[in-house]
């Protein structure tokens, strides 16, 4: 039976190689292409190992688009969102976790509903709203809509709920103000969740192509993914080596983060899967 054949040792070797090729080769090809000369890129059959290696494509990519400008925008937008999210998520999660107040269920429900409304629906009305406010092509239009995260509130609330009441009572009797209790008891205990949220937010914001594309009409605040896309629009046909060079630079930060925090990241994303 095919199944048992595959699970047999030799079969596994073949299967593993196949998997590795399918999922790794494209990345290899991307990097290789970025080092090829333009002439070499259009060779068919293509060279698996390039005969000449050059860094020129990277320089070209850097020059063809205002690379540092886009990079700067990505950094500004990503970190602003990270910071704003911390300021909106932490108090809200704390309130939902530790206070009993009228309407808390309803308000929490609003958050959950908001979580399910995708940007692919909100972009049109928000574009109109921002243009009426004169905020198109401003950082605000890229940052504010993501200044909070209902998923983050959900996760952090779970974490805060697990802090034992005794600990809070002991801290109260130790003359700790509520603010101090949050800083010294709740936040340290919720650190893993906070790190997870930060990772998820960083990755999704850095990678975001949709929102910076549809909410802007000029390159003023556009982020790196949108910037690299304009490498496609070269007049005399597409220079794939330049495009791949840009792509490599785009992927590099995320890949580094992934290599450094693999386990954490996988845990973060797969938790989302069965939330």
């Amino acid at each position, binding site marked *: 039976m095919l199944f048992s054949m595959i699970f047999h040792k030799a079969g596994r070797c073949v299967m593993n190689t196949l998997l590795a090729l399918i999922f790794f080769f494209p990345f290899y090809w991307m990097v290789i292409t970025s080092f090829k000369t333009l002439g070499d890129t259009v060779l068919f059959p293509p060279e698996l190992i390039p005969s000449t290696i050059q860094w020129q494509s990277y320089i070209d990519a850097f020059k063809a688009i205002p690379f540092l400008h886009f990079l700067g925008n990505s950094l500004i937008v990503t970190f602003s969102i990270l910071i704003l999210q911390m300021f909106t998520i932490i108090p809200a999660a704390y309130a939902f976790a530790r206070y009993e107040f009228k309407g808390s269920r309803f308000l929490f429900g609003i958050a959950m509903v908001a979580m399910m409304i995708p940007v692919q629906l909100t972009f049109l009305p928000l574009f109109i709203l921002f243009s009426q406010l004169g905020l198109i092509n401003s950082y605000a239009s890229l940052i504010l809509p993501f200044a909070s995260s209902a998923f983050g509130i959900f996760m952090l609330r779970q974490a805060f709920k697990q802090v034992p009441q005794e600990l809070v*009572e*002991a801290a109260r009797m130790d003359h*700790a103000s509520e603010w101090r209790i949050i800083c010294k008891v709740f936040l340290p205990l919720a650190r893993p969740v906070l790190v997870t949220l930060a990772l998820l937010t960083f990755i999704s914001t850095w990678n975001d192509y949709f929102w910076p594309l549809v909410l802007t009409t000029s390159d003023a605040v556009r982020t790196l993914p949108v910037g690299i896309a304009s490498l496609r629009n070269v007049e005399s046909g597409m220079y794939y080596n330049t495009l791949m060079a840009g792509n490599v630079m785009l992927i590099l930060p995320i890949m580094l983060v992934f290599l450094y925090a693999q386990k954490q990241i996988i845990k973060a994303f797969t938790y989302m899967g069965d939330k």
Partner: protein
Amino acid sequence: MSEIVFFHAKKAYDSKKTVIEDLNLVIPDGSFTVLVGPSGCGKSTTLRMIAGLESLSDGELVMDGRRMNEVAPEDRDIAMVFQNFALYPTMTVRENIEFGLVNKKIPREERQKLIADVVETVRLAEYLDKNPGELSGGQRQRVALARAMVKKPKVFLMDEPLSNLDARLRNEMRTELIELHKRLQTTFVYVTHDQTEAMSMATDIVLMSNGVIRQKDAPIKIYNDPNNIFAAQFIGTPAMNMFDIREWPQHNSIPEQARYMGFRPSRVHLAQEATASMDKMDFQGRILTHEFFGSEIIYRVETDNGILSFKTFHKDELPLDMEVQVYVEKRDCYFFDDKQNRVRCS
């Protein structure tokens, strides 16, 4: 004078669930008062009311002559040791102990000194820079104690602090707590469900059930002179033998209203040891079980009046199913009326 007084205190959750109806209690200054009773008897609630973690639904709480009902827990000059220790897991032992002091903005040198004193008493000096997670149960217990002691409170409140320790450690800590109390001479209010703990540590025992105080006395007095069946059977191991004597043949020295009679297993003796002049009650029966405890043996005997346990220090073990004759002296018997209250012979 850090005396604690409850006047007609009441604690109710919603309108339906009243945990404590009408509590009137004086906890003497400098005492080691143990609140003891089965689960749900209201002892923890009472402790938390003293702490201020629960408010009084009605009545007054007065400490040191001051009315405390509205005073916040942190302003009551008390310290509390929790059942699960409630140590801050992300802080070192030192930081745990000085947390309260830091919050009150006490300067560093003074803090160092206070901590040094306390740490010496509880023998934690080598652990100051460790995290609670790295400590054993007994060590965590001592950190919790140190944290309470460093505040130099007028009252120490303890909510079943030994129940999470293993048996041997519990015994050790019991003596340590007794010595601590003697040394500090501060009021200790201690909650437990374990009557041996209560008996060994307390200067005053407050026995509670269903939100009501059943007896408040020194340990030896509760043991020797219980006010009701509940007290008689809760205190002392094994529990006091208790019989409904309405059907029993009349005896001239049994009080009129007496419906129940009880006597301690340790006061039961084998018939051979009786002397002629004793005023005694005899029992006869078959040995059902025996439990060997090293220095003593506890037997359960099936008699016509019911099962009776007796405790002896005889080294020879009597075999099961053996027929024995035992007696108890009249003066060791306690009588209770049909409301389960004690009837005292004149």
